[in-house]
């Protein structure tokens, strides 16, 4: 998918499509909102936050197969050799060429983040509050003790999410300070500065993304409305 063509000179190369950027920047406030509504025991809103995050994750997983080049898992998830090659040869080397999209380490952090959030949402679905009043939409399928275990794991895993988020921010600061490479700008504008041969990236249509998103959102709503009890 990633091929070099002959053109050179500094350009603003488009790397992130709009759906991927929207996914990223909606997830950030939603995570904060989910945390805050849990702290304030606003469980109606907390469940809504959870359903929204669930929808986003489903969309991102589909987009990771059907989306643009830089959004596809197959293009950024590599084996250990690719990972170690990048860490040893590129990561700390200021003059190394930047990655057109997720680098091999960042790719795995995307996978870790999606996986832990999926586990978190899944646990929330079955969680039961200690007061027995509030619960996830599918907790009626499990007994009280199982629901409590799910809720305790749900509380614990939030710490892992915080740790991964902190690591994410530290990595961005590392790239900014050590590599002099600003990764936040491209996640906003979609474009990054690029010198020399640039890769040919394929971009999927944002309309396709919208249709997929609406299908996923509708499916989530149907699942909760039809089978959930909250």
């Amino acid at each position: 998918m990633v091929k070099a063509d002959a053109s050179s000179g500094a350009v603003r190369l488009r790397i992130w499509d709009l759906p991927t950027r929207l996914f990223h920047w909606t997830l950030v406030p939603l995570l904060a909102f989910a945390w805050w509504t849990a702290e304030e025991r606003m469980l109606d809103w907390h469940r809504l936050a959870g359903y929204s995050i669930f929808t986003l994750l489903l969309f991102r997983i589909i987009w990771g197969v059907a989306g643009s080049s830089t959004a596809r898992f197959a293009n950024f998830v590599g084996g250990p050799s690719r990972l170690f090659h990048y860490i040893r040869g590129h990561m700390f080397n200021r003059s190394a060429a930047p990655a057109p999209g997720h680098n091999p380490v960042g790719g795995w952090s995307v996978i870790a983040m999606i996986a832990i959030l999926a586990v978190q949402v899944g646990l929330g679905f079955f969680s039961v509050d200690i007061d027995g009043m509030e619960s996830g939409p599918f907790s009626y399928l499990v007994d009280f003790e199982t629901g409590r275990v799910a809720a305790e794991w749900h509380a614990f895993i939030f710490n892992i999410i915080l740790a991964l988020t902190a690591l994410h921010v530290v990595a961005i600061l590392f790239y900014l300070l050590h590599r002099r490479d600003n990764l936040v700008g491209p996640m906003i504008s979609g474009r990054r500065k690029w010198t020399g041969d640039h890769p040919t990236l394929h971009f999927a249509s944002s309309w396709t993304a919208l249709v997929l998103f609406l299908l996923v959102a509708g499916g989530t709503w149907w699942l909760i409305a039809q089978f959930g009890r909250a």
Partner: protein
Amino acid sequence: MKLPYSLALATAGLAASYAAYAATPAVTNAIKARQASYKEIGGAFKSVNDEIKSGSPDMNSVRPLARDLATRAALLPKYFPKGSGPESGVKTRAKAEIWKDNAAFVKLQGDMITAAKALDAAAASGNVAGLTAARNSLGGTCKSCHDRFRAEL
């Protein structure tokens, strides 16, 4: 010369602290019994809630659960003997405040017993709106007591 002395002192200290933490069997039994009872209460209340959340509660399922809740709630006061808090050394979320501010705790416990009786009565009457209201007030008593007297680990 000094080593055996300090070793003896450490051993004595360890034994003393162990003795301080070793709860009497009566206290340990009370903690175990109350934890088992709270699990049953949580389970029964969750089942009542699952019925209510289904939109059309099956009163035949709810009635024995509500009866069980009322019975178990009435028994709770005897599961909190002095010494069955964190100082027992047994793993418990019961805060020391239960005994420091015992009047407030007993009051909340009384509220729960009353609310559980009301749930039982509402289930017996078979009225869904009444059952829902009784569920809400019972759930409220869980929360008000947990917020104050149950430790978050």
